[in-house]
């Protein structure tokens, strides 16, 4: 079955742990970012995000977190959704949600970093 990870389990296992480590490393960055920009106006956000040490880790964190959460959700889907068509639909929705969130987040960060 195409939606089953059975043929690439080791790769998924490793990817989940690599992205997990990246997320742990960047959790302090995330908290700093949210705390320092909570209530900030757009000009302050642009000033912060335009620094490469902000927009680069922000993009890395977005990528790692989204890969990590998609794998996790897929594991849950495999455990609880067994009807083939519902399984295919759930898997598709999981990917669509991840991609949509990723595109909006990445474009927003780049607009703040370069668009002003």
């Amino acid at each position, binding site marked *: 079955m195409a939606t089953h990870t059975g043929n690439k389990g080791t790769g998924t296992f490793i990817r989940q*742990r690599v992205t*997990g480590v990246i*997320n*742990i490393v960047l*959790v302090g960055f995330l*908290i700093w970012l949210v*705390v320092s920009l*909570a*209530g900030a*106006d*757009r*000009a302050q*956000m642009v000033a912060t995000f335009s620094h490469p040490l902000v927009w680069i880790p922000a993009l890395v964190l977005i990528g790692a*977190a*989204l890969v990590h*959460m998609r794998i*996790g*959700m897929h594991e*849950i889907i495999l455990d609880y959704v*067994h*009807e*083939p068509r519902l399984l295919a639909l759930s898997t598709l929705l999981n990917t669509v949600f991840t991609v949509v*969130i990723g595109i*909006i*987040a990445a*474009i*927003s*960060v780049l*607009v*703040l970093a370069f*668009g002003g």
Partner: protein
Amino acid sequence: MAQQFRPTSPHLSIWRFTLTMSLSILHRILGVGLYLGTVLFVLWLGAAALGQSQLAAVQGFFGHPIIQIGLFLYTWTLFHHMAGGIKHFIWDVGAGFERTGREAITWATLVFSVLATLLVWALFVWF
């Protein structure tokens, strides 16, 4: 054609709940919470990218007491899921499986996540 439905074994309905099992279930639930919470991040970043007036509107939304409680719980969710992940790294190398060890690191994840959440909110929000 092989049967489409594979046989499944009962799990939640027949096992006695233990600490590690309950926290394992919680780890998944919190993972789903973090998953859905990405919408909040995108709402914030997206509004900021669009313009000052959109950002101001979203900040009004984030200032609402119910959303503030949600953000507090989201902070705990983040810390607890992270601590649970570190626990799994320890288990991945084969350590911490003995009876007292596995219970101790599971309690440690709870203590850490509660303290870390209170510390972050006390330092950056409350005081």
